[in-house]
């Protein structure tokens, strides 16, 4: 229990740090970004939007930094991230809530799938080390070094241009309206296959390699030898004794590298013009839509924190030592 409380406190502090970071970054920048934005949008920004920009960048002379900070927090609790320029006058929170489900489904499913498949493959490779299976390692190694977005480019050129069996971009067929009809869901799944495959293939290699190395290390432990000597079936030794212990660092690694993976998958969305958070971020960057960028960063960070927490608790369930030592 003590372990869980410590972790929860840690996540609260991290969330606070992320929000505060988000508050300070625009304030630490040189120059007057608001003026350049007003010039860029020439009259298309309302006075309200300009005012909210000055507040965002802390250039509002009238209020102190502390007042700004308090106002920022109260805004957050009301779900108010400001107003997006790209989708003016839609509030940032609305833009995000439209794109978030896409990302959660695509990235969530494919990341977890990549982890599970990679870990299973790693168990097999680690167990059968010194055989032909080791020949797969250089391949996995090469794939782990490929940037996600480049694999996406290759996937598009192979399966959408040269052999046109999948759509090259978008999240659903143009004419459809997002709802829960069979047509729409089918189209969404069809459009999701290629990006999901890209994410699975580029993330799987890292899990294979780390799990394989842990399997090799763990399987020379005495308790594995003992299990073997007791005459337990190979399957049982492999999964119940070796893999069960070898998977622990992989799970904590999963939690810690989530931030990295999510970063990579966001770029995959940009390549596929998939209507999720990553693509929205891409649009926000290209039109210098600061409120939207900030809102997205915050949402991504908070989602990663939640996912991290889940992975942490899974770890606590799998490893009794964490529960005891606290």
């Amino acid at each position: 229990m003590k372990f869980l409380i410590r972790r929860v406190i840690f996540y609260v502090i991290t969330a606070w740090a992320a929000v505060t970071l988000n508050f300070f970054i625009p304030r630490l920048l040189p120059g007057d970004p608001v003026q350049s934005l007003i010039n860029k949008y020439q009259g298309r920004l309302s006075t309200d939007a300009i005012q909210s920009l000055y507040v965002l960048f802390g250039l509002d002379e009238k209020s102190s930094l502390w007042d700004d900070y308090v106002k920022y927090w109260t805004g957050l609790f009301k779900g108010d991230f400001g107003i997006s320029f790209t989708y003016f006058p839609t509030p940032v929170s609305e833009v995000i809530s439209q794109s978030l489900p896409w990302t959660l489904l695509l990235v969530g499913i494919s990341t977890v799938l990549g982890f599970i498949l990679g870990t299973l493959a790693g168990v097999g490779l680690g167990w059968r080390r010194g055989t032909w299976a080791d020949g797969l390692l250089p391949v996995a190694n090469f794939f782990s070094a490929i940037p996600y977005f480049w694999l996406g480019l290759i996937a598009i050129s192979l399966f959408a241009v040269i052999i046109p069996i999948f759509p090259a971009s978008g999240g659903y067929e143009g004419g459809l309206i997002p709802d829960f009809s069979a047509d729409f869901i089918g189209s969404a799944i069809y459009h999701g296959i290629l990006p999901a495959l890209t994410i699975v293939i580029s993330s799987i290699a890292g899990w294979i390699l780390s799990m394989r190395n842990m399997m090799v290390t763990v399987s020379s432990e005495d308790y594995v030898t003992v299990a073997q000597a007791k005459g337990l079936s190979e399957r049982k030794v492999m999964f119940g004794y070796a893999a069960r212990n070898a998977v622990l660092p992989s799970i904590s690694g999963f939690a810690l590298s989530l931030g990295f993976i999510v970063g990579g998958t966001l770029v995959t969305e940009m390549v596929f013009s998939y209507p999720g958070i990553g693509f929205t971020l891409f649009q926000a960057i290209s039109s210098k839509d600061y409120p939207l960028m900030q809102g997205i960063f915050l949402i991504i960070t908070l989602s990663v924190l939640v996912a991290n927490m889940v992975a942490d608790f899974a770890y606590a369930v799998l490893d009794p030592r964490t529960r005891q030592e606290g």
Partner: protein
Amino acid sequence: MSVQLDPVAADPTSTATLTAVAVRSKRGRRVQFGILRNRKAMVGIVVLAIFILLAIIGPWIAPYNPDTVTPEGLQPPSPAHWLGTTATGQDILSQLLVGTRGVMLVGLTAGIVATLISVIVGVVSGFIGGIGDEILSLVSNVFLVIPALPLIIIITGLLPGAGGLTVAFVIAITGWAWGARVMRAQTLSLRKRDFVEAARANGEPLWRIVFFEIMPNLTAIIASGFIGTVIFAILSEVTLAFIGVTSISDWNWGTVLFWAQSSQALVQGAWWWFVPAGLCIAAVGTSLTLINFGIDEFVNPRLRSTAANAGVLRRKKIRARIGFTPVYRGKDIR
């Protein structure tokens, strides 16, 4: 870059592995320069050396000016243009050659800065303990959990026209946490070792204990942390350039891909435009990972004895498949 290590000193684990090292050293010189005898690491070092060489001489050996626009647009590879041309007739090989320097420079700078931060934070936090340690590890854990790439995108997106070195520093500031965490764990385990206690009892000053007793034992971890950060930095930089956050007038491999993507190279089937740049990234990344595996296998004898000698084992008809560390049945060496 050769990393020379004393395996006994570099080994983080306790007595069990020390015996394994003792067994190894009976085979004589193999232990010395083991990293260079590791085939994986050697391949990695050679490939990396080629790219570092290209980074130095690239701009001079580039056959064309990468910015020069010619009428020969979208030419497939030919003797005149080995990797073909872009839609505006620029030579892609020249773009890649000129861009290598930017990629390497940012990767190495970010790697060095991040490693420095992580060594300082990790060693200090592992060594002082107490509340200072709590605070420092909290800070590094926070940095670890916050997704780095979106943060880098936000910062560089807000900085107008961020060039190479700015990007390197932003990457370093967001990418040091993993190394610090590993370094702290290792320092913690070293701090209580006998040789450190002995040094303290001898009255060695603190700086000497840190630099001459602790640091040499962190060499392998520092090296692998450095390499990991360089991989992260190169991938981040290329990604930033690809999505167009950083200055698109500086050539690097990501810029090439940015132009390929924005000029619809995919739809036009201009594979020569986006395939080579990606292969370069993958080659550098693979070479760095291979070096890291070399270090890993060097530090962890279990990986080494099983992975490196797979062929030897097969010839001796030892089945490595079952869990044990393979041992000779005949001679008593344990």
